[in-house]
């Protein structure tokens, strides 16, 4: 099948004619002027059908019919963005690591969501286990049980992890973390050195577990008959009801009870308390601009920390009332030894300690599970502190 559909070949000529006609018509409506430069070639070029000409040009390997837009990409630019890794390892950079070096890195960067043993926390993805479950009622799909290619693991950790600090790991760290994930799945020994050279030695258990979309053969023909219109079933019974499960969100927008007054209706559909901080614009209150800046900076934190009404502990503790609070004091949150030690030493989150922690989290509290590289700019740290100060306990 041709890769170059000749879809718009016919449509082009009329378009050009219309434009030229309009041009002529417009010309007759104005006072005679000195002759205009002949633009017919330019118009023809611009109204030419891109698809046909372009694709003919591509097919011929020539430059004909191009627009001359854009600029050549520099090698450094391509190197910065073109980081994908193919199943055969093409695209892997030099480097190496094993599960032993990977374990502390995983603990620091990944365990907060994926668990210390890659077993997953809450609803976050489980990365290990599940072998032999794919045909079960509730298969557990992990790197070990499901992922067909190791390249995908390396590429994804390198490109998009840790969540909220993507592309902050060195190549060696990526090799080590990937080795730890493989080790957690019993796919390598803890001293196996994962590198460009050894990459293809790792067998992925589900590599042969995929088939290419076969709906055309298995479904389309069977489901293309003229459908039944009358007396298609002898009886119809309800076999399952969503209300029995009762997992639908409460605020589903269904109409409020009929007969209630309008005020009740409004309150029933009220989207609920806003997450906006109750910025106190009165004298002595926080600088609204700084708070607004802080709200933007806080986006870097939102993956793990909640603030505002209903804020709960997630990967990180909620931060309502954090300013002025003792370190590691949110009930129900499992803090690292590092923060517990600071708490025992009597540390309190004030502007100074918070700034120090946010500048270099792992430097200030070695062993913290917060996998955030920190805020380099003092302005950002001040802004986020001002923003956090607007949330009371």
């Amino acid at each position, binding site marked *: 099948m041709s890769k170059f559909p000749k879809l718009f070949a016919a449509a082009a000529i009329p378009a050009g004619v219309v434009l030229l006609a309009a041009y002529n018509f417009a010309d007759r409506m104005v006072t005679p002027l000195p002759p205009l430069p002949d633009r017919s070639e330019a118009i023809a070029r611009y109204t030419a059908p891109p698809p046909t000409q372009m694709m003919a040009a591509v097919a011929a390997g020539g430059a004909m019919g191009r627009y001359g*837009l854009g600029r050549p990409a520099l090698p450094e630019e391509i190197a910065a963005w*073109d980081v994908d890794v193919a199943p055969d390892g093409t695209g892997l950079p030099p480097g190496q690591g094993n599960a032993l070096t990977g374990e502390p890195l995983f603990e620091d960067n990944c365990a907060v969501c994926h668990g210390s043993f890659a077993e997953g926390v809450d609803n976050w993805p489980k990365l290990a286990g599940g072998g032999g479950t794919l045909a079960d009622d509730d298969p557990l799909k992990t790197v070990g049980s499901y992922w067909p*290619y190791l390249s995908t693991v390396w590429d994804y950790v390198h490109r998009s992890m840790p969540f909220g600090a993507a592309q902050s790991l060195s190549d060696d760290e990526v090799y080590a973390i990937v080795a730890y994930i493989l080790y957690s799945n019993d796919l390598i020994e803890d001293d196996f050195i994962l590198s460009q050279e050894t990459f293809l030695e790792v067998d992925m258990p589900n590599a042969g577990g995929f088939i290419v979309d*076969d709906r055309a053969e298995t479904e389309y023909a069977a489901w293309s008959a003229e459908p039944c219109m009358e007396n298609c*079933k002898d009886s119809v019974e*309800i076999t*399952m009801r969503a209300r029995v499960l009762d997992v639908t969100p409460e605020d589903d927008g269904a109409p409020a009870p009929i007969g209630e007054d309008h005020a009740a209706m409004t309150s029933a559909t009220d989207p609920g308390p806003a997450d906006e901080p109750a910025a106190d614009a009165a004298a002595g209150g926080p600088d609204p601009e700084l708070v607004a800046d802080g709200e933007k900076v806080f986006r870097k934190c939102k993956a793990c920390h909640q603030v505002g009404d209903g804020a709960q502990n997630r990967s990180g503790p909620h931060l309502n009332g954090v300013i002025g609070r003792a370190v590691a004091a949110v009930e129900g949150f499992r803090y690292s030894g590092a923060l517990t030690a600071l708490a025992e030493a009597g540390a309190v989150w004030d502007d100074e300690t918070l700034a120090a922690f946010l500048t270099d989290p792992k430097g200030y509290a070695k062993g913290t599970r917060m996998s955030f590289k920190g805020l380099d700019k003092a302005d950002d740290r001040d802004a986020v502190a001002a923003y956090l100060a607007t949330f009371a306990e």
Partner: protein
Amino acid sequence: MSDGPKTSRRAFLRGTAAAAAGAAAAGAAQGAEPDPLITEVQDWATGLGDGVDAVPYGLPIEYEADVIRRNVEWLTADTISSINFTPIHALDGTITPQGCAFERHHSGAIELRKEDYRLMINGLVETPLIFTYDDLLRFPRENHVYFCECAANSGMEWAGAQLNGAQFTHGMIHNMEYTGVPLRTLLAEAGASPDAGWIYVEGADASSNGRSIPMDKALDDVFVAFKANGEALRKEHGYPVRLVVPGWEGNLWVKWLRRVEVMDRPVESREETSKYTDTLADGTSRKWTWAMDAKSVVTSPSPQAPITHGPGPLVITGLAWSGRGAITRVDVSLDGGANWIQARLAQPGQKMALSRFYLEIDWDGSEMLLQARAMDDTGYVQPTKDQLREVRGLNSIYHNNGIQTWWVRETGEAENVEVS
């Protein structure tokens, strides 16, 4: 019964009964109480409304405050890598307003200025190129209406009726008019190799959400869009530039599109191996299941849009679409699939765009098991959920296009159910 309606629903039931009784009384006793909304001068008819510029860019009036995107909290670990749902139960026509069109992010909706936008075309090309946003505006433009459906739409319903509302069962879809440049124009500009079988596309966000697409599709109708419904793309839909991959699963519609690599093979990225693959009953999984098969749903009445007016004229309406062509016909059943009536398409079906259908009936107030069944111009007929399960088993997540049933009660309330 233990699974009975919530308090508000009970009140609703009483309300409906009362309203029906009231309507009957009004019909019987003509010229009873005059309507004060008519006989008394209302505030809005005597005072003044807002001047122009009261709202430089408007949101819907407050009375429509419940027509919003909603998420299902338990589905995902957080809202950053998550999904929400279009309120299709409350919309009509086919175009989805951007402000309530479902969102799916893998690492949050980023803010990327047009001035900071760059698009790289590299790989098997004569000249790897960088385009700015302004460069893209200088290529010949096209306009197309297409639906974008997440592959996981209705994914929570594989094992049975679960979520009670069309928004939640079928709301991972939107339909917009896009303005942009065909991808083939950009590929030609870079001198893409005619031998390359694939492209790899990725976004500028932290997830990058890379996907491989066969070159045939890339050259056919894939589209680099910068406007939707006439205005700039919303942040949550990939401002300033997203990929449009007509008829194919939404995950391929890469937002904040930053790079297109011309390749001789697929990358086998996370999103096309560990996710967006379909595990069958025997544990093997289908991959590259890109096309969204024909599907339909009655949007009203439905659990979030019950019948509030009692027996008499009733408009049944819904949406139908196919990722493999145009909708040619939609049938509606009132009795759980025993008998079918052909519905009316509001417009002739357009390829890979939503179709709106209507069926007007004189409702006698009795229970209904409402279903819709779509057909497209390939001859494909939307299957039942049981037909899907027979072929695929129960462990799929994606591509559930089975026929949906709403159980409409005498009260007008509706519930998501499955039928034999």
